[in-house]
């Protein structure tokens, strides 16, 4: 059986985001968003809280944001993590 090293969840449609996760030592979060200047910190905070709620301490997380609200970011991260199988 081949273990997954990366997984994605979400779409590039507006109000959504595409989340990519990869196995990595420590936590690295990268955000690409048209509203990064205004909401980048909030997205980062939501991402960190979601990882914490899942007890994830080793992950690379990339969020391509298309104007997603917090509930969508949370859901997409959770799905991507489950798909990664960590």
């Amino acid at each position, binding site marked *: 059986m081949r273990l997954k090293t990366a997984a994605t969840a979400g779409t590039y449609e507006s109000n959504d985001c595409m989340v990519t996760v990869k196995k990595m030592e420590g936590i690295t979060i990268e955000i690409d968003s048209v509203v990064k200047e205004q909401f980048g910190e909030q997205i980062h905070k939501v991402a960190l809280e979601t990882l914490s709620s899942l007890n994830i301490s080793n992950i690379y997380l990339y969020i391509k944001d298309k104007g997603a*609200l917090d509930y969508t970011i949370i859901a997409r991260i959770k*799905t991507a993590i489950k798909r990664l199988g960590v």
Partner: protein
Amino acid sequence: MRKSLLFIPANHPGMLQNVDIFEADSVIFDLEDGVALTEKDAAKDLLVSFFQHFHLKDVEKIIRIHEIHDLDIIMSHHIDTICLPKADVSSLKLLDKKLSALEKKHKLDHQINIIALIETPESILNALEIAKQPRVNGLLLGAEDLATYLGVKRTLSGIEIEFARNMVIYAAKAVGIDAIDTPFTDTTDLSGLTKDIEHAKALGMNAKACIHPNQIETVNHLFKPSKEDILYAQKILLAKQQADAQGLGAFSVDGKMVDKPIIDRAIHIINASKE
């Protein structure tokens, strides 16, 4: 009584977060045909997160499940009703058991209802038994799947589903629950939608599923009693009051005898006009 039920694909954040601006009586969050097989997991996670963040009021929240195990993930006190695809008596009994267990587990303070989706030839023939199952408070005709089973094309006149519509209506009305008509699939043809509703309503349907927000206003408008119906119903009820006061058993309005079914219908019209 419901009039309009709007289907929303459960994996579509842009539509989910705007549901409260639509004026549908009910929203059906769709985990079945509206979501690709490979995205069911994402749709369930999104729906759970959505309900944790948005507390919708004044709208019935219905989930059309893909499979019964979906409930293990999505169940919460925010859900009012489950729509069961390809419902039959045995799957409804199973769902009833499952919901009883989950209501207990989640300590819900309300009972989850069921809308049975009637979309196979067998379920059309068993519509009354289906309508009698616990928790079922509506039958929804699914004409697209049914047409596939029957090997017929859907038409604007709907002649191919006339028998199915009647079976759903008679079964629903026999036990006093909602008869919900199949969606009209051409979202750009509002005149076709109007004709379709008028025909379904004339047969006895009291509600219709919508697949686009632009259908809601027409559905709500046409399933509401007309002004003439309301005025006539008020006339009947006023005449009944006067007849009761005079101790008359039978009375007439506009030269026509009024009996219990007509009075019941007048009460129903007045109640529906208030909703």
